[in-house]
């Protein structure tokens, strides 16, 4: 029962995306363009590009699935489809599992393409295992999805939903260590960074890029990411009320 409804939901979400050619193109092309930009921005310090290249490939899905999910879920809430789903036999878990499966697949596709482009066309030099990067990207897609699901409950309009990206996600990216190592931040910021989901996503990718393996710390980082996905999903599920006023 559950498998059927969640598969149907995953397929429906992917179909919605497929009808929107421009969004699909943007999801795939924008990360490649931004990486190209960074490649030439750091032309005289190639080690910087090599340091941030892998984390970026893995973090794009977090950013983009957050936006896609918060807007898609807001539309479900405002167009009346969510109300109809809540009146249908669909379990909330079916809905969440359907969304998760769809966006994990998109994250995998996106990260595979972007990673291939970065390695082959931009000459990204890394000892990171490609499959491991793609797997982390998929986890980050799920993290973005679950945070987006949660954020959609606090937006009334699509304008608000898109503004949650700079409000919720951008600060996490600024503080995660991508731009400045966290140990060089003011103490309060470092503490704050340690409480944010993207920090653990970044650390796992960074460890993979610099050491070529996750190690014990990297495993903890991944466990933290997975735990945070579950927390965000549980909070998001709590905002999906079958009965509303």
């Amino acid at each position: 029962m559950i498998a059927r409804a969640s598969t149907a939901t995953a397929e429906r979400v992917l179909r919605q995306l497929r009808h929107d050619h421009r969004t699909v193109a943007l999801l795939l092309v924008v990360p490649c363009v931004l990486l190209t930009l960074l490649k030439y921005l750091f032309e005289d310090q190639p080690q910087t590009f090599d340091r941030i290249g892998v984390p970026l490939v893995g973090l794009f899905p977090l950013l983009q699935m957050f936006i896609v999910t918060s807007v898609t879920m807001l539309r479900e809430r405002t167009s009346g489809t969510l109300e109809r789903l809540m009146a249908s036999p669909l379990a909330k878990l079916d809905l969440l599992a359907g969304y998760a499966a769809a966006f994990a697949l998109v994250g995998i596709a996106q990260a595979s393409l972007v990673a291939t482009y970065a390695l082959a066309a931009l000459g990204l030099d890394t000892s990171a295992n490609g499959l491991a990067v793609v797997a982390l990207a998929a986890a980050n897609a799920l993290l973005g999805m679950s945070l987006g699901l949660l954020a959609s409950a606090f937006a009334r309009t699509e304008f608000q939903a898109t503004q949650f990206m700079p409000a919720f996600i951008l600060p996490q990216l600024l503080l995660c260590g991508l731009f400045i190592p966290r140990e060089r931040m003011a103490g309060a910021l470092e503490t704050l960074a340690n409480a944010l989901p993207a920090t653990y996503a970044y650390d796992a990718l960074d460890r993979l890029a610099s050491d070529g393996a996750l190690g014990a710390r990297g495993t903890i980082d991944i466990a933290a990411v997975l735990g945070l996905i579950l927390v965000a999903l549980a909070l998001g599920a709590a905002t999906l009320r079958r009965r509303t006023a």
Partner: protein
Amino acid sequence: MTGLARAAVEIDDLRVRRGDREVLHGLSLTIAAGTVTGLLGPSGSGKTTLMRAIVGVQLVDAGSVRVLGQPAGAASVRSRVGYMTQARGLYEDLTVRENVRYFCRIAGAPAARAEEALASVRLESLVDRVVRTLSGGEQARASLATALVGRPEVLILDEPTVGLDPLLRRDLWRMFHRLADEGAALLVSSHVMDEAANCDELVLLREGDILARATPDELRERTNTDDLAEAFLRLIERERPSDGRELSMPASGAVPDDVRGQGA
């Protein structure tokens, strides 16, 4: 005539507040299987709130709503209830067929039902159109198809025939009666009284209370008029006789034309 029929929906003393306003004030109602019941009243009278309570998505303050013998919205009963919302509740970026197939799979119905449902609302020629590009009436039919697709025993339809051409409207009412003949209970809302004549039973709702519960013929008899819109107005006038006297209005209720039929 439906006294012996099985009750599909039983509502007892239902109270619903929205914000600081009470929308339904202790409403009780039974809907029999095998009938088409019209839920009529001006917009704002509580029709949608009542329907939401029956499908189990409305927060309820007091009272009980039972559907097919179980609490409204219970997991075991949701697959036996079809719900068409006033906001059409379709995925606008998907095609008509993709929408109907999705709701078909959610309902656990075989895929062939999707095509049957599309045919029953005469949408075969538009199946591959993206919903966003359809007219309001076409979207209403697509939405109806997604509500019908699981062959529910209870069908809750919120303004299903708004904006449809008269011929299609007639066909849909025929289909509603066919479904009732097969044993389904249908509750169909409308804010337009001229739909009333199509129903077996009428529930007239006004400001969160049931003003009358009758068959169209009983209503005509009770109010001495063949015009159901006029009958509704006469009932409202009777409800507040003191107002009528103070304004020295005739008992028949001389009501301006612009409020007839619409009520709101």
